[in-house]
């Protein structure tokens, strides 16, 4: 081993600039996620401990693997200086490995690379995709509200919402209170994007910063929420979105629709009184409709909840249960629901998720659409040339 050879001296880098290669690197970063594992050595079957997780310095977050770590492990949130880490690559993204050659020591947060705001790339909402981070984004808060969640034993409040600029909308999940208010225009820095239920979600935590800004080019919230619908083919092509509007005709109903029973613990719909997770339970009656909405270019499924189903159908859950007592056949109810919704022209806005069966829309609003036939006829007539 050559001692102190300048060729082998680790080069200090920011994580954003890492590239897989042979030179060891030096960096300062914060451990943002960590997990202890053990692997079995093939030669003698002994167990070798390792830590793996994510380390971030504000410019990027990379996965690390730490062989033979300290016995006490390391706490999430610790800032470390790493000297002599090897840079590899996994699925095209750089990752770092700490081995016996690497020195890992505590560091102070002030040692983290200082970022000039102009160095942080500016992104539009449409460009945000997991696992982006280290960007700035300017957007309007369309909606925000607190929600209580339990993380392990701990009760926390998370602020869920929706952000939009001229290019698109994205779901927001803030783990600290930034005092966000509906209608505000904000510049956000230090967030990251993850996939949540198949959609990108912008996550903010204590390391993020939020600054109120002038409106600039951002559309008013009302304008965004009343924007014209997009074609379903376009929504399919784009894979959904946090807030998409479509307009179409109901051409079918997917099971289970109508009166369903849900597990009182987890809310999943149950069959034969058995929940997939909680076994035999006393189901709670609920009303739902899985509408197939079609605009001629494509089709998607709209999940209407009890309130929306009652409004579309004009029949309440109570009335359903009464009908079921009179005629104990749930398929008749489903038939009546289909009869009530088939052919209805609806404009739906909500969050769209794509899976193997296409797009599913969880609606924020469902509105019936009236067609102005005279205007439509005039518009169409103008597109047909006169007889020769």
């Amino acid at each position: 081993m050559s001692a102190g050879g300048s060729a082998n001296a680790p080069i200090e880098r920011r994580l954003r600039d890492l590239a897989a290669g042979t030179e060891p690197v030096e960096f300062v970063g914060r451990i943002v996620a960590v997990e202890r594992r053990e692997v079995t050595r093939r030669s003698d079957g002994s167990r070798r401990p390792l830590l793996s997780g994510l380390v971030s310095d504000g410019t990027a977050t990379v996965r690390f693997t730490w062989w033979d770590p300290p016995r006490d492990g390391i706490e999430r949130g610790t800032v470390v200086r790493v000297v002599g880490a090897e840079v590899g690559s996994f699925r095209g993204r750089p990752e770092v490995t700490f081995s016996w050659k690497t020195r890992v020591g505590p560091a102070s947060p002030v040692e983290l690379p200082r970022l000039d705001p102009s160095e942080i790339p500016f992104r539009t909402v449409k460009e945000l995709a997991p696992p982006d981070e280290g960007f700035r984004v300017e957007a309007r808060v369309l909606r925000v509200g607190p929600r209580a969640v339990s993380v392990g034993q701990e009760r926390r409040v998370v602020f869920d919402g929706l952000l939009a600029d001229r290019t698109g909308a994205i779901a927001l999940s803030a783990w600290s209170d930034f005092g966000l208010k509906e209608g505000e225009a904000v510049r956000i820095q230090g967030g990251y994007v993850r996939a949540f239920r198949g959609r990108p979600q912008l996550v903010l935590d204590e390391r993020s910063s939020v600054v109120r800004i002038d409106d600039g080019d951002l559309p008013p919230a009302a304008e965004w929420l009343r924007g014209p619908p997009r074609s379903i083919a376009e929504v399919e092509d784009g894979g959904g979105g946090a807030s998409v509007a479509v307009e179409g005709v109901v051409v079918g109903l997917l099971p289970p629709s109508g009166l369903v029973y849900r597990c009182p613990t987890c809310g999943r719909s149950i069959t034969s009184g058995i929940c997939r997770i909680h076994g035999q339970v006393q189901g709670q009656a609920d009303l739902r409709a899985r509408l197939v909405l079609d605009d001629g270019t494509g089709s998607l499924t709209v999940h209407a909840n009890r309130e929306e189903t009652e409004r579309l159908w004009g029949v309440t859950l109570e009335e359903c249960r009464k009908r079921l007592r009179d005629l104990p056949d749930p398929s008749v109810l489903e038939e009546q629901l289909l009869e009530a919704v088939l052919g209805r022209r609806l404009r739906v806005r909500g969050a769209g998720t794509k899976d193997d069966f296409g797009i599913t829309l969880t609606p924020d609003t469902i509105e019936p659409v009236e067609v102005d036939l005279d205007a439509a006829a005039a518009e169409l007539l103008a597109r047909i040339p006169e007889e020769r």
Partner: protein
Amino acid sequence: MALREPAWRVTARELESSLEQEPGTGDRAASHVLSPFGARMNRVLIAGSVSVAEPIGRETPQAFWRARLTDPTGAVAVTAGSFQPRAMAQLRAATFPRSAIVVGKVHLYRDRGGVGYVSVRAEAVRTVAEADERAVLADAVRQTLDRLDLLERIEKGTELTDAEARTEGIPLAWVRAARDALRKYPNADRAAFRRELKNAVRRVAGDSGPVPSPRPPAVTVVRAPPPPPAPPPPTAAEREEESVFLDLLDEVAEVSSDGYADLKELLARVAARGVEGERAEATLNRLEEEGVVEEPIVGKLRRA
């Protein structure tokens, strides 16, 4: 990944004009019918006046029902069988023609002459108010015009990349269907078809009453398969072979126990008289086509 097929908005006229079937490839793949006007349809949503349904089919007369849906551009058969109980019940329920919308799958049946018959196997039928029927018709006309515009653009040789189509909000499936329609129906008269849509627009505007619907001139031309050419009249030599064939057929049938002439034996005897192989086949085919000879049991012939 099997995405649900969209319900194409088309007029009855476009369905009538469609002659190109594309069977699906792969496991449980959907088959499509390609129209001359850029629709690659598996499922459609159509609106019009639906007639009283009649039962069809031989065995159980109740198992299959058919009605006609008429819009200002034409008419198309709408069917429903026991596999579409909901739609069948709807079709059967009506006792008088009424405004309705139909969601269903397009079927194309081609007879031996190459003439295509399009029908729609209904998944859902719903009686609607007249205004709702007109609204669906308006969608059909609008999307048909959109597709015709697209065909025109591509025909003029405009390169339309996927990225450009995306920016303009044109579904990529439409672009592909338009290219194929231009290739498969090079002679379709799209300008005439566009003018025919005027009748439908009048209906959208509420111009109701019996729509004078003189059968418009055909705007599509079949390309594949070409109609079979009329067979040339048999020559004298062929006539001679036919009479040899028939004489021998009678001979063989006379002595057989069941009254039929055995095909193998007949061909052997015909060959002995100098009519062999392909020529014998051709003679037999000609006789069968003219209805002189029939083969009620495979390998057994008799005079018709």
